[in-house]
């Protein structure tokens, strides 16, 4: 129970369903702040108190479990290391994969619990053979199946998402109000929870060494200077401060970050288009496809709130390779590609490499 409205209502529904429910709030920050500011802040004392008061209202026991050490190692340090390697990580995904459905779930199972129930908007559906499948939530606008795409069959076997079938978030808020939960009108949280002021660049700059280097084009020609390659993201256009215009006079975008040589590669917008993406760190959410080595049709989603794009997937040489039917923009290594078949989450991979759709790319 984060102290937000979703987990409070999820807990309430679990109680109604007849489960023996214990509320657990995760202490994830090594230095918890005192009070929340707007929708920002990470496991503040106030959030913990909000969760506790929701548990009181539901008449369930409540405990705070400290996973701050694991959170630092498995989520925060990973986030920093991924950026330092020129990739774009998704820490919420890592938290689900490594904290909520690993460290927390395993402790809970060992202590005698059967499942972890969260306020995520996603659905668990049983297939004809009774296998658990992960599906999109009824409310597509709130659907959070993307950030759960990392869950494996084993983790799904002990997961409960009571909000998945709710038609809308507004209904969850109404239900919270009707249940007398004080968090009914609490603002949704945004941004990365451990970056309390929302300034990801500033936060990273304090933790990753930035060294000046060169900006090059696809041919390797030097076109400008930068103050630290890791301060850039793939797809970025603004703030490049290139003195000389491109030969064709068109704007240039960041195509690639090369942390080892400390170079930022820029080029025209077409060069951003990605024809193929692949990753060796992949997992199946539930039962894997019968023959993943044979190409199959699917949809791929590369961000929590981007549209799913039709693609062909295949497992080849230890990599999950995804070929979108038309090139994708805004794809960066480190992001997670979640593979859907209809509303079902089939699995995911962390993107290791991309292939540009632009033929001239070196």
């Amino acid at each position, binding site marked *: 129970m984060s102290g937000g409205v979703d987990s409070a209502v999820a807990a309430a529904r679990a109680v109604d369903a007849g489960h023996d429910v214990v509320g657990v*709030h995760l*202490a994830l920050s090594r230095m*918890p702040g005192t009070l929340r500011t707007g929708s920002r802040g990470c*496991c503040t*004392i106030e959030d*913990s108190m909000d969760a*506790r008061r929701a548990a009181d209202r539901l008449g369930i*026991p409540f*405990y*705070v*479990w*400290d*996973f701050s*050490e*694991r959170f630092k190692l*498995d989520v925060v340090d990973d986030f920093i290391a991924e950026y330092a390697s020129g990739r774009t990580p998704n820490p919420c995904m890592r938290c689900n*994969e*490594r904290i909520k*459905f*690993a*460290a927390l*779930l*395993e*402790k809970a199972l*060992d*202590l*005698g619990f059967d499942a972890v129930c969260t306020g995520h908007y996603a659905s668990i559906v049983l297939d004809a053979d009774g296998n658990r499948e992960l599906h999109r939530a009824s409310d597509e606008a709130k659907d959070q199946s993307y950030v759960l795409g990392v869950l*494996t069959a*084993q*983790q799904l076997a002990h997961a409960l998402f009571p909000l998945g079938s709710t038609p809308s978030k507004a209904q969850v808020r109404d239900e919270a109000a009707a249940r007398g939960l004080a968090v009914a009108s609490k603002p949704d949280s945004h941004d990365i929870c451990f970056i309390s002021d929302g300034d990801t660049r500033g936060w990273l700059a304090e933790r990753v060494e930035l060294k000046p280097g060169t900006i090059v084009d696809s041919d390797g020609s030097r076109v400008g200077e930068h103050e630290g390659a890791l301060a850039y993201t793939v797809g970025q256009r603004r703030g490049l401060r290139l003195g000389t215009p491109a030969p064709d006079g068109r704007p240039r975008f960041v195509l690639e970050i090369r942390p080892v040589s400390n170079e930022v590669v820029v080029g025209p917008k077409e060069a951003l288009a990605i024809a193929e993406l692949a990753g060796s760190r992949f997992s199946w959410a539930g039962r894997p496809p019968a023959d993943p080595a044979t190409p199959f049709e699917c949809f791929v989603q590369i961000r929590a709130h981007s549209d799913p794009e039709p693609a062909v997937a295949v497992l080849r040489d230890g990599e999950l390779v995804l070929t979108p039917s038309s090139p994708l923009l805004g794809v960066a290594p480190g992001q997670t590609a979640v593979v859907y078949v209809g509303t079902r989450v089939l699995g995911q991979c962390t993107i290791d490499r991309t292939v540009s759709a632009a033929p001239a790319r070196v």
Partner: protein
Amino acid sequence: MAIYLDHAATTPLRPEVLEVYTRALSVTGNPSSIHGQGQSAKRVLEEAREQLAEALNCDPVEVVFTSGGTEAVNTAVKGIYWARTAGAVGGRRVLLPGGEHHATVDTVAWLEAHEGARIEELPIDHEARLAPESVGAALEDEDAALVTLLWANNEVGTVQDVVRIAAIAGESGVPVHADAVAALGYVPVDFRSSGLAAMSVSAHKVGGPVGVGALVLGRSATAQPLVHGGGQQRGIRSGTQDVAGAVAFAAAATLAVGGLDERATRLSGLRDRLIGGIRDAVPGAVLRGAPAGASRLPGNAHFTFPGCDGDSLLFLLDMAGISVSTGAACQAGVADVSHVLLAMGVPEQEARGALRVSLGEDTSGEDIEALLRVLPEAVARAQRAGHADRVPSALR
């Protein structure tokens, strides 16, 4: 009904205390008022002060009622520091053992940060005992403002040789404050013969209500006030005085001190049964603090259990209807690794498995047996869950 074995955190209000407390709550009148009703309230208050003074063996004028133990400790430590450094140039030393209660640790840290005090932490041994001689050695330099220490450690139950320590400090003329919150009612606490300059006590640890404590400030000790206002209580602690709280504390302290021998004997017996039972049932469980005997609080059994977190054990016992504690201070519901155990030299990983069982007036032999019945299974389960920092198997 849950079995309550966390008397070191707070104690159930004794029925006799509840009765006099509620009766006193209905007394109208500010004890500082001149009229007859004020005088009546004042009479009730001063009778309570005299009664508490008798229980603590001090003079009534030495009793300064406070909002609790923490305020008493703050008043003693800051107040004596300020009085001793008034007009002096530069900060002076505050001597305290390792593993003190946060009321002291954080107060002293504040003095260091804001008043230039220099903290000198005196080492405690693996049983949390402070060697009195180390106080003498530390006082050879003349710039000490005060010595402050727990009479009995609230986590691991070790009782210090307060009288000897006060005598040694007395030779140097340095005032000593003892936090006797955990000691009162369990070991003899006699202010007059202790040689202390000041002593803090609290009502809710001895069957009284939360929100009342007292600083016993010796006649010859001087302290600057924390709270300024109407000048009540020797000007040390301004504010309208809590007549009912004083009455309740006095009644609770009288009962606690009056029945001490019988209680200490009975609780030591239960504690020793508990300690023996835990040692028999849980291999690797280590009793922390002083060995069972006169230098350990009779109601305190503090163990570390290998390979698990104290908070897992606490949770499992809570689910089984038994209330205990990890002993350590909490922040937002999370217990830190005990600074007391660390000060005793316990390795951090072992300290994570801490569990404090504290017995009190209402504890029965059956309560102890009930705990011993469920504990082995709880420890086994908690050990399966391991430490919170273990690498999840999903990531291995």
